[in-house]
């Protein structure tokens, strides 16, 4: 019985490592892409000559897009 439990736990651990970790790593890579795109969006907005208020609105759009990207709806 103990051996069966130990074997089951080992299998679960094995599957966790090989199934969950790549997913987590993929999620992190995706979040990094989201943040990279967010920084590009902010950089473009910041260098615009549209006026201070319009620039802040543009920056707010960048933040919304980041939120959507991280939640997995779409890419920024």
């Amino acid at each position: 019985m103990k051996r069966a439990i130990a074997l089951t736990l080992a299998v679960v651990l094995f599957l966790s490592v090989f199934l969950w970790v790549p997913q987590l790593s993929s999620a992190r890579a995706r979040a990094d892409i989201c943040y990279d795109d967010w920084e590009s969006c902010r950089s473009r907005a910041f260098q615009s000559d549209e006026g201070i208020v319009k620039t802040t609105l543009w920056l707010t759009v960048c933040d919304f897009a980041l939120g959507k990207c991280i939640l997995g709806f779409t890419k920024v």
Partner: protein
Amino acid sequence: MKKPGLPIVLAIGLGCHGHAGICLQTSPSRYAAREVKRETPADARPYLSRPVALVYDESRLFVLDMDDDDIKVFSRSGAFEYVIGRKGQGPGEFHLPSGLDILGDRLYVADSANRRVQVVDKRGSYLSGFRVPFSPHRILAFGPDRIVVMSLPSGRDGQEKVLHGFDGSGELLWEAVDSFYSGDSVYDLMRNRWFGLKASRGEFFLLRGTDDRIIRRLDENGILLGEAGVTVKYPIQEVDIPGREGRKRTLRVLCWNCASDRERLYFLVPERTEDGDLGPGRAIAVIGLAGEIVASIDLPEQLTRIAVDGNTIFGLDLDGRLRIFRLEPK
């Protein structure tokens, strides 16, 4: 009988000695910027998509185009000559470059989206480069091993350093100046509108574009050498921006863009737009080292970026066109 001629000659001589541009006056003098006739016909000029920085040497102007990911090179009289770089991640390629400086025969580029600094020669040949752990925004080169990079703070990890000193191989030598951080990413970024402008002797001026009147002078090692406050006579303008939770927050904008030349600072004064926003203006205030207004310059139209060389002003207008002006006393 008094001889008034001598003191006047002395005063003018002291103020203008060794100075090709604006002379020292006891009260601010006014100048008009007259456009220089360009060599190239209008339809032959290359289209600048989003020019964000311009630097010059004794024979050419280099305009950094953020959207085209390149540097467009002009003669000092405005004739287009050639393009340096293209979009990409390889050597000599750029992605959303946002800062440019020139030192000797080298151009230093803050290659923002590639998170790196690149050094190319004036024909565009790649010389060197290094990665940086942030989004580089502006760059000042003081020597092959003295490069100051200004970052655009993300606020992801709270307060960050704004100034980063590197050697030519990309080794971090020092960091200085904390960014403004309140947790409101938009407001914080607007409060972090820093400008770095070269001074003499390997030093530079550091200005915060909003909510500050302090001109800081630092050396190439990031050491603060001195500070001066911009006179209260200088017209800082306020604008309300939407903040978090529907709260309005007020920004006090010092300058839209600025430049330095011969130990003077040139502030492009922001202008109120028809819809109540604050945008690029058509006046430049010339600020002395003590923060006093030395002169004012009237421009024929709004400029978004400026570079000054003596009595010549190189500017970019709202349509992204390169403009060249000469100063004339009013």
